C-alpha cells in the first residue's frame, strides 16, 4: 500500500446553518488521481476551499501526510505542498506567459527574500519544460490576457506544475473547453499522474474515463460512494441521487 498523501477526517463547514460539506472523511494515496463527482451544489468546490484554506472549517481535520494543515493561512498551506486550480481560470493577466511561470517557480514566500534580479537557471529549465508540456512555448512572450480560454486554463495548470506541490487540486479543469481542448487537457493531467497526488473535480464523463482511477461521489455535502469507474456507474445509490438531474453518469 502506498502512503496516504491526504487525509480528510470528518470535515464540515456550516454556512449559518447550511452544511455545504458535512462530515466528509476520505483518504487519497500518494501518487493517486482521485476524481470528485457530484451534482451542482454537492459541495465539491467547498471541499477544495476547505483543504486549501480559502474557507475555514467548523469541524474536522485535514492532514497532508503527517502534518495537520486544518485552517492554516492559504499561503502556508500552499507552501506545505497543496496547489490549487480554480473553477474560474485565474492567471496573471498583464504578465507574459513566461513571466507567469517564473513567478510560480519562485520558492520564497516573503518580499525581502525576493529583492534580487532574475529567477535563476533552474527556474529557466523548469519553465521551458512546463511550456513544452502545456504547449504554450510559442506563446511564451504573449501577455496572458490575450490567451484563449483553453490556453488560459493550460497556463494555470502550468503554474501548478511549476509550483510543484505534493497535492494538486483541480476544480473543473475542462470547463468550457472544446472536445479537442479537453483531450489535450487529459494528456497533460495524465502526464502528471504518478508524479503528483491529484484530486480533480469534473463533470465531463468522457474526460473522467480518460483519467480516472478512483472516484468519490459527493452528494449534499456528504460522501455517497467511492470506487472505480465501473463500480460508480453501476452503484444504485449514485443512480438514485442523480435521478431527476440529467444523469451525468
Amino acid at each position, binding site marked *: 500500500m502506498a502512503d496516504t498523501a491526504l487525509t480528510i477526517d470528518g470535515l464540515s463547514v456550516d454556512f449559518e446553518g447550511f452544511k455545504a460539506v458535512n462530515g466528509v472523511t476520505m483518504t487519497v494515496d500518494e501518487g493517486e488521481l482521485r476524481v470528485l463527482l457530484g451534482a451542482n451544489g454537492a459541495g465539491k468546490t467547498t471541499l477544495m476551499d476547505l483543504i486549501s484554506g*480559502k474557507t475555514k472549517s467548523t469541524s474536522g481535520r485535514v492532514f497532508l501526510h503527517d502534518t495537520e494543515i486544518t485552517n492554516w493561512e492559504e499561503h*502556508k498551506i500552499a507552501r506545505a505542498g497543496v496547489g490549487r486550480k480554480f473553477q474560474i481560470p*485565474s492567471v496573471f493577466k*498583464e*504578465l507574459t506567459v513566461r513571466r507567469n511561470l517564473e513567478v510560480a517557480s519562485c520558492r520564497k514566500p516573503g518580499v*525581502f527574500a525576493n*529583492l534580487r534580479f532574475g529567477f535563476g537557471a533552474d527556474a529557466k529549465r523548469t519553465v521551458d519544460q512546463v511550456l513544452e508540456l502545456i504547449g504554450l512555448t510559442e506563446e511564451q*512572450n504573449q501577455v496572458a490576457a490575450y490567451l484563449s480560454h483553453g490556453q488560459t486554463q493550460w497556463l494555470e495548470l502550468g*503554474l501548478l506544475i511549476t509550483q510543484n506541490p505534493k497535492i494538486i487540486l483541480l476544480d473543473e479543469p475542462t470547463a468550457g473547453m472544446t472536445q479537442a481542448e479537453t483531450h489535450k487537457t487529459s494528456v497533460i493531467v495524465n502526464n502528471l499522474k504518478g508524479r503528483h497526488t491529484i484530486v480533480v473535480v469534473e463533470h465531463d464523463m468522457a474526460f473522467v474515463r480518460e483519467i480516472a482511477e478512483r472516484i468519490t461521489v459527493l452528494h449534499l455535502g456528504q460522501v455517497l460512494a467511492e470506487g472505480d469507474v465501473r463500480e460508480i456507474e453501476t452503484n444504485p445509490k449514485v443512480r438514485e441521487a442523480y435521478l431527476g438531474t440529467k444523469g451525468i453518469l
Partner: protein
Amino acid sequence: MSSKRPIDWALYAVFVVLIMLAPLVMDSFWLNRVAKYLVYGMLGAAIALSWGYAGILNLGQGLFFGAGAYMLAMSLKLASQTSLQQGSDKPVPDFMLWNAEPGAPTELCCINKASFLWLPFQSQWFGVAMGLVLPVALAGILGTIVFRKRISGVFVSIITLALVLLVRLVVIDAQPITNGFNGLTDLGWFKVGDLEFDPYVVPTYYLVAVSLSLVLVSARLLVETRAGIILQAVRDDQNRARYLGFDVPSYQTFFFAVSAAIAGFAGMLYVIVSEFASPTFMDLTFSITMVVWAAVGGRSSILGACIGAILINVISATVSETEGFAEAWKAVIGLIFVLVVLYLPRGLGGLAHDLVDRFVVRKRGGGERALRVTSTSSQAAE
C-alpha cells in the same frame, strides 16, 4: 518584453540628460520653478509605483508628502534667523513665542506643553531621517492593517482619503507646535557641510534633479526584481498569488511603504526649494491632483507618470501667465484627464509603449498582436 527594455532605459537616460541640461537655458526664477515640478514628477512616480504596479490607488499620498515636508521644515525652522533671535541662544520658533502663555519660559523644552517634541529637530539630520521614517512607519502600520485584513480596491482608496483629511485636521488643530493653518514659514536653508542650498541657485536645482534621477532609476530597478514581478502578479490576481504560496500582504505593504518613502523624500525636497510647509500639502485636491498627473502620464510607467506631472505643471505655468487663460486652463486639465481616462487608460506612457511595440516588435515579426492591454484587464485586478 525583453526587446523593449533597452528602449525603456534609453528613455530614462534621455530624460536624465534633459533635466541635467536645464540650468543651461533657464534663469534662476525658472530653475526654482522647474525644481518644484521635478518634485511633483517624483510624486507622480510614487503614485505609479503604488497604483500601476501594486494596484493600490492611494488618494491620500499627500499624507506622506506632508509628513516628509513637516519633518524637515521643523529642522529648518529651528535653523532660521527668526528662531535664533528670540533673546536666547537656543532656537525657539517665532510663532511659539507669539502664542506663549504669559510667564512661560522661552525655551524649546517647555514654552508650551508639546514643544519638547521639537527638541531633537535642532539637528537637521534628525529632521531628514524623520522625513523618511515617519512616512514609512505610517505606511507600514496602515498597510499591515489594511492588507492583512484583505481590504482592497476602492476601500483602500477611501481609507487613505479619510486618513489624509484626518491628519490635516490634527495638524491644523495642533496649532501650538505646528502653527496651524499658517504652516511653517521663514525657514532656514538646508545645509550640507559648508554648502547652503539657497532655493534659487543651481546646486539646489541639481540636488533635486539628481535625487529625482536616483529615485526613478531605483524604482524602476525595484520593479524589475523578483519581488517587483511578484508584486505585479499580486496586482493581477491576489488569490492566485496566495495559492502559489506568496505572503501577499508583505508585498503590498512593502511597496506601499516604498511609495510613501518616495513621497516623503519629495516632501523634503519641496521644503528646500519652496521654503515652507503647510497643511495645504494634505488638502484633498493636492492628493487627487497627483493621481491626475499619474493618470495622464501613465500609471503603469514610472517615467511616464513622472513626465506627466512635469508636463502638466510646465504647461500650467506657461498658460496661466497668459491673461485670461488661467481659469480656462483648469477646465482644459479636467478635460484632458477625462479624455485620457476614456481613451488612453494607460496614459501617455502607455501610448509610447504601444508605439514602440508597433515599430520595434512588429519589425521583428513578433507582433501580430500589437493590441493594447485595455483598462478592463487592469481594472479586473481588483
